[in-house]
């Protein structure tokens, strides 16, 4: 019996050494370590052996089983390594070839700018509203303290629409600024108000590197009890900090817009020269970013808001200028040229 076990062990291990694949190893395992294997039969038959043989046979049988299991485990490891090496070799690819392309789309840089700025202001409690692009003279001018023949109209050359009102008057135009949405908001929305509006505006102007007859603006309006110019400065500073970065200096100076009083212009330190003066900033060191101010009491009253009780601020930003400054784009016409070689860069 003992000799049989020794033979079994040596035969099994010999056979094991010559196995080269997982299938062979599995049939070897079944044959030598399976339920129906000779070794298993020996182990199960130990109890039937004479008492004095039991110890020796039992010990050897267990040693044999342990040796075979050990061999199996090592062989398994060896085989796995062998397989991986084979796979790696067989299935190698040129990893420098480009991947199967997915079509890559993109958002227009102006739309992206609108989203970015709207996000900043919505986080400060402003909500996004919209207004018509084809507008009445009233909302674009009159309601904003710009009556007919006001000198400020000269700075906003207007495209007029060939259409009549019900009374046969011709007062339809393409809005020259998104500020035209403000009086509509004041007339229709419940107080208090915090809104921003972005969209297309139009000027009667020929195209060149810095002008197009259509461009984009974003306007903001806040109306509440106790709103101050300090709030306006704080809100705009927060916008500038988040859009241009913490380290960029910001300047507020007096400026004139007929629909605000006091009027404000916000400028940031020049992105190129950082204040030293260069061609981009016209040697001033500053880049004008937006116009703002405390909403003129006349604008509030005309829309039915009691200016004794409520104060308000408003601001307007030209949107093309921001990506132009940020990305160094030197011709505004590129935004509306639909050239993929331009648009894909953003």
């Amino acid at each position, binding site marked *: 019996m003992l000799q049989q076990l020794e033979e079994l062990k040596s035969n099994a291990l010999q056979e094991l050494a010559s196995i080269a694949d997982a299938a062979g190893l599995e049939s070897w395992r079944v044959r030598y370590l399976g339920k129906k294997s000779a070794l298993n039969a020996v182990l199960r038959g130990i109890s039937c052996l004479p008492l004095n043989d039991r110890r020796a046979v039992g010990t050897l049988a267990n040693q044999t089983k342990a040796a075979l299991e050990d061999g199996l485990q090592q062989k398994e490891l060896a085989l796995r390594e062998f397989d991986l090496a084979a796979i790696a070799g067989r299935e190698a690819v040129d990893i420098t070839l480009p991947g199967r392309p997915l079509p890559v789309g993109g958002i227009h840089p102006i739309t992206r700018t609108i989203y970015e700025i709207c996000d900043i202001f919505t986080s400060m409690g402003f*909500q996004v509203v919209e207004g018509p692009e084809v507008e009445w003279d009233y909302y674009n001018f009159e309601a904003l303290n710009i009556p007919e023949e006001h000198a*400020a109209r000269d700075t906003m050359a207007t495209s007029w629409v060939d259409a009549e009102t019900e009374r046969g008057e011709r007062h339809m135009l393409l809005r020259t600024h998104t500020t035209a949405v403000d009086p509509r908001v004041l007339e229709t929305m419940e107080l208090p108000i915090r809104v921003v509006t972005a969209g297309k505006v139009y000027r009667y102007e020929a195209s060149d590197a810095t002008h197009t*007859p259509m461009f984009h603006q974003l306007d903001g309006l806040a109306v*509440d009890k*106790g709103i101050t110019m300090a709030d306006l400065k704080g809100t705009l*500073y927060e916008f500038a900090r988040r859009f241009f970065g913490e380290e960029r200096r910001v300047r507020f100076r*007096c400026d004139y817009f007929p629909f605000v009083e006091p009027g404000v212009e916000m400028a940031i330190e020049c992105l190129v020269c950082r204040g030293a003066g260069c061609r981009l900033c016209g040697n001033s060191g500053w880049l004008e970013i937006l116009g703002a101010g405390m909403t003129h009491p006349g604008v509030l009253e005309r829309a039915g808001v009691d200016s004794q009780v409520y104060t308000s601020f408003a601001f307007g930003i030209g949107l093309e200028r921001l990506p132009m400054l940020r990305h160094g784009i030197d011709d505004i016409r590129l935004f509306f040229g639909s050239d*993929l070689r331009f648009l894909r860069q953003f």
Partner: protein
Amino acid sequence: MKVPLKWLQEYVAPSVPEDDLASKLTMAGIEVGERQAIGGSWEKIVVGQLVSVEPHPNADRLKLVTVDLGTEQLTVVCGDPTLKLGDKVPFAHVGATLIDGRSGEQFHLKSAKIRGIASQGMLCSEKELGISDSHEVIMVLPAEAPVGVPLADYLGDTVFDLDVTPNRPDCLSVIGIAREAAALTGQPIKINEPVYNEGGTPIERQVAIEIKAPDLCSRYCAGLITGIKIAESPPWLQQRLLACGMRPINNIVDVSNYVMLEYGQPLHAFDYNQIRGQKIIVRRANSDEIFVTLDGVERKLSQDMLVIADEQRAVALAGVMGGLDSEVSPNTTAILLESANFNPANIHHTSRLLWLTSEASMRYERGIRPELAVPALKRAIQLMLQMAGGEAAAGFIDVYPGRQEPTPILLSPELVTQLLGVEFSPDQIVTVLTSLGFNCERSASEIRVTPPYWRSDITIAADLVEEVARIIGYDRIPLTMLSRPIPKQDPKPIFRLKQQVMHSLVGYGFQEIICFSLTSREALNKAQTRADDDKPPLRLSNPMTTEQEFLRPSLRASILTALAANQRHEEGVIRLFEVGRVYLARPGDLPEEPEMVCGVMSGAGSKKSWHGEDRPVDFYDGKGVVEALFQQLGVAAKFEKGQDNGLHPTRQVAIAVNGQTIGVVGELHPEVAQAFEISVPTCLFEIDLSAVLPFASDHRMFQPIARFPAVVRDIALVVDKDTSNQQVTDIISSFPMVSQVAVFDVYSGAPVPVDKKSLAYRIRFQSIERTLTDEEVNDIQQQIMARLATELGVTLRN
């Protein structure tokens, strides 16, 4: 407005350096743009005096001139025959930088021999110094010029170019800027009262003024000077005009321009002897009245324009420009000097209609105050008497129908705090306003403020708050955040829908473009998007070009133009989209502006790649995009036979939501493709997002995920050629337990009969309650086949 600092310093002595003054003015609302340094390059140029003028021994036209420079005397060769002994001139030493009189380029002066005689420097013309374009003669300096002093010290200056906002016509003047500088630097302002001898005949006996349009002319003042001599102005006056960008003409015209620049009040000098009947009538023009302005242009006037006339004809277009035949000429001996005030809107109107702006109209249309008329008139008479001699008539005429008493404004210090968010004491407020010339009377709670006579922009208390803030400095106002509760939010769903659509399309590989909303009739015709004749596109009444004449009723023309342009340099499939408004006319009202999305995909499988070539784009590419988009939006869209003129007659569908057509998708109509020069297969879709909006709801109800396995059956059917997939799937999916039907193969050709085609479907059978048995599925499948056979004549394909 250009302001030479030396001129400014006649009224105020700013206590700060030039840079600080520029910065203070800019911060206070008057932006200092370019700063021009006159004489900045005048190194080695000094004031010299001619001590001898001798003929050149070797040239008839040249002279040898010896110049006294204080410490030395140098001799130069000079060609100017007008030079006289004792003249003071700019003398350039060798090494000076000058401007070449002919080429206009800079050069460095070298020592030279001219016709055998060494010239140790050069006498300069105004052009060589960069002062003006005059190059015919050497510049002669005033007799008081100090010999030997660097020219830059004597004539040099800095000119501020100021951007004056339209509300501040008072700052279109040197004195106006001086007042700002005085307030900003805490210095006093000194303006001398003009005095002159008015010894002539009282003016009332020599001229009469009548204002027939008092609504358009609130004040008309006039003075009269006789016995004048027209001549050139003295150099200092000419140089100031030049520095301010005005051309010197003669002493009378120059003084009226000078005083306009000084006070901001336009003045006009008429040749008194050309005023017929010695009467000035301020009246509306007759309709179609012809008038020749002094620029020589004949202009046709209308009744809404104001003219200054004598008894026979108009002599000036009021507030805009004088007339040619009453202008001051070299022979003029007497002048009538106008200092008036006109209605700003009317001047703007006239100037706009005639395309004629002037220094005068620019000031009038911004609304200068009538109180300015008298001081400016007196100042001009004073200077004219100095420059042109003569005798001023006693007194001046002042017709003032528009006189208004100044109305004080009540300002409470609380309002300042309420608007600015920072407290300033009543003392501070009064100090600032007083420094700007405002009259302040304090009571217990308020300040009664009367604006000075030159300010036309101050009408309400908020205007005063701005004055306080801008002089103290906007940087003194703190930064605070809005502290009140956030107002009720009621976001507009269209904004979100647009964003969703954009993100989906970008995910499908589409690039967003933004095109002009204005387009041409030609482009609209090319895209075949001509609306019905009763709804023509909106047209501009003043189009800049025919390219931008119509408001687009569809996004197609622009996107197809963009596609065609990109095809010239792009390989492979191009995918573009635009989200924007179209404009649909409504009678008597603003147009409708629905938000649309329009997309194109185009490509012929030409892009070479190691993965293989792209497949040419076809109808199903476009439809796939639209299907995916609507699935993502959660909107059930149906596709129906389309009838769009711009799309391929049989390869297009109309997209319907809730029974309403809201868009189209299809291949481009061959004619449209040809019109836009698009040569590769192209799919286009256009969808009205405003119409989709009511159905794009996020309120989708959860459906439990089936816990029991599905049974999948594939069947291949033979159907009539013109039977549609829709007909087949409608029948199959109407059966219970059918959870999904998908066509996976479409085939025609042998062995399928010619008038038939084969469609293969994968059908998933599933119950949410139990596992289906093969028998059950077989049973349903047989019922399906039976119905397909009776209704559509479908057979199974083997």
